[in-house]
């Protein structure tokens, strides 16, 4: 059952990612990005990361994407063209072979390593949110504070940048 869901979420997120890059109209790209974010959040659920699922849906799909769509609607962009280098066909076959080789190596690799201190059973006992909270406010407290300061800087920067500037002499008619 997990395999079925994984296959669906993986294929759908890849398709949505390709559509985000390939579609012409910017608003369509934004909606494809929304599909990508929601399907990636589905992958998080399969990995027992419910808290990250909620954060992904609320922050990414709810806040960041709405910001993108707001700016897209505000600027009323036209469709634009994509630039492929004129000789891109010569790179297609080496790129495909290289990617297939990397995938082959990935599938062979067992990824064995030292286990950490949060086995699935222990996480499921109190829930993922509890585990994330305990870890964040003990071992990762400094990083948490740094992210807070970073977000404050981002807020101030965005306000300063997007504030209406002093009227300048504009020679062109809009």
């Amino acid at each position, binding site marked *: 059952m997990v395999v079925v869901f994984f296959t669906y979420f993986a294929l759908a*997120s890849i398709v949505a990612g390709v559509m985000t890059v390939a579609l012409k109209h910017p608003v369509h790209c934004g909606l494809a990005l929304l599909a990508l974010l929601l399907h990636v959040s589905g*992958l998080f659920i399969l990995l027992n990361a419910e808290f990250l699922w909620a954060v992904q849906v609320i922050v990414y799909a709810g806040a960041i994407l709405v*910001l993108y769509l707001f700016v897209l609607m505000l600027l009323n962009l036209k469709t634009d063209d994509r630039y492929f280098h004129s000789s891109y066909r010569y790179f297609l076959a080496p790129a495909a072979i290289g990617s297939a080789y990397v995938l082959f190596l990935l*599938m062979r690799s067992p*990824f064995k390593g030292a286990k950490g201190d949060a086995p699935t059973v222990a996480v499921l006992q109190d829930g993922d949110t509890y585990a994330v909270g305990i870890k964040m406010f003990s071992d990762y407290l400094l990083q948490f504070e740094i992210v807070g300061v970073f977000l404050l800087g981002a807020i101030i920067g965005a306000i300063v940048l997007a504030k209406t500037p002093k009227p300048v002499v504009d020679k062109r008619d*809009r």
Partner: protein
Amino acid sequence: MVPLSAYVAVSAVLFLTGLLGVLIRRNFIIVLMSVEIMLNAANINLVAFSYYLESMAGQLVALFIIAIAAGEAAIGLAIIIVVFRGKISTNVDEMNLLKW
């Protein structure tokens, strides 16, 4: 049971898609969206390793990445609005003032 390799492969494909988008698209907003795709690919990787190696660190770093992505989107879109106000264009090839 889905192997860890499958998650890493999905993440790699998504990362390459985002990289391709940054390289071939000329609309600044879509370039930023492609960067979001790449950040999401990194998040999948981190959470998958966090699950399979039984450590909480990956999920925390993924949380921080989401916070960084929010800041990056806010600043990037503010820059787009400033540029658009002056030049009526979001083509990355026409934003070359810093090159001189």
